[in-house]
């Protein structure tokens, strides 16, 4: 166990940081309402955005062979995650969807981005359920 921890310290600390970041984002937004302050909101969204692209990079790194493709796949993959999440969100709310609710869905997508790699199987499962 100790050997495993030592070998994968980088990945493990990345996952732990991601989980902490997601938990703090939700707490700051819904519990302490700290995101109403623009400075805090910008900082939280920026950190979550960085984690989003870092997570997507982890996924695309395995199959992208050149540097250019790696960058493009990371950017497009991040955008695809957000658009797919908001598509499911919109379908979830149906006709009741409003710009405010849509903003909320996007916010949740950004907050969950730091744990994207860990939650990937869950996302696929939800997509499978909704897909029929």
């Amino acid at each position, binding site marked *: 166990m100790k050997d495993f921890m030592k070998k994968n310290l980088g990945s493990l600390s990345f996952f732990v940081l991601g989980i902490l970041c997601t938990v703090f984002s939700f707490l700051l937004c819904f519990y302490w309402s700290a995101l109403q302050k623009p400075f805090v909101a910008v900082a939280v969204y920026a950190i979550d955005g960085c984690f989003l692209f870092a997570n997507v990079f982890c996924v695309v790194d395995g199959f992208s062979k050149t540097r250019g*493709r790696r960058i493009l*796949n990371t950017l*497009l993959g991040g955008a695809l995650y957000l658009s797919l999440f908001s598509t499911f969100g919109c379908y979830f709310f149906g006709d009741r*969807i409003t*710009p405010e609710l849509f903003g909320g869905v996007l916010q949740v997508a950004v907050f969950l981005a730091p744990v994207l790699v860990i939650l990937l199987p869950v996302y696929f499962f939800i997509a499978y359920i909704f897909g029929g």
Partner: protein
Amino acid sequence: MQAKFECYGRKKIALVYVLLAIFFVFSVGVTFYTVLSQRWDLLALCCGGISLLLMVLLWLVNLSADVTLDFEKRIFASKVPFRKEEGWEIGFEEIQRAAILSKEELEVYYKGKFLPKRALCIYLDEHQLKVVPGTRFSMLQLQQVLQKIERRGEDTV
């Protein structure tokens, strides 16, 4: 000097770009209509359209298979996957001859169901050959590659 041949013939590339244009026009059009008419129930359609557009873009970015003839290093390289081989590189000196084989002709060398309809085969000797599956190339492209391989001894490309 290099001669590089990207996969996918002109018709297939045109088809992909038409598909991309359709998704682009659809998603931008629906988004504008949603915002202008304030029909927020159409937001799901906008997001779905943009998702499809991004998927096509990701597919385009990852179209990577191609063959290259490097006349300076005297190397023929293929990045087109065939069976378990992801890609390979051979020197011009190793090439005995090259030919475009049909599926039936390929069955002499390879067993199994999933053989390409046509393939460019590079013979290293009578029994050993390297295969570039030709289904994603147009016939014209395959003939051009074959022509270049046959003229590999000359200085001009």
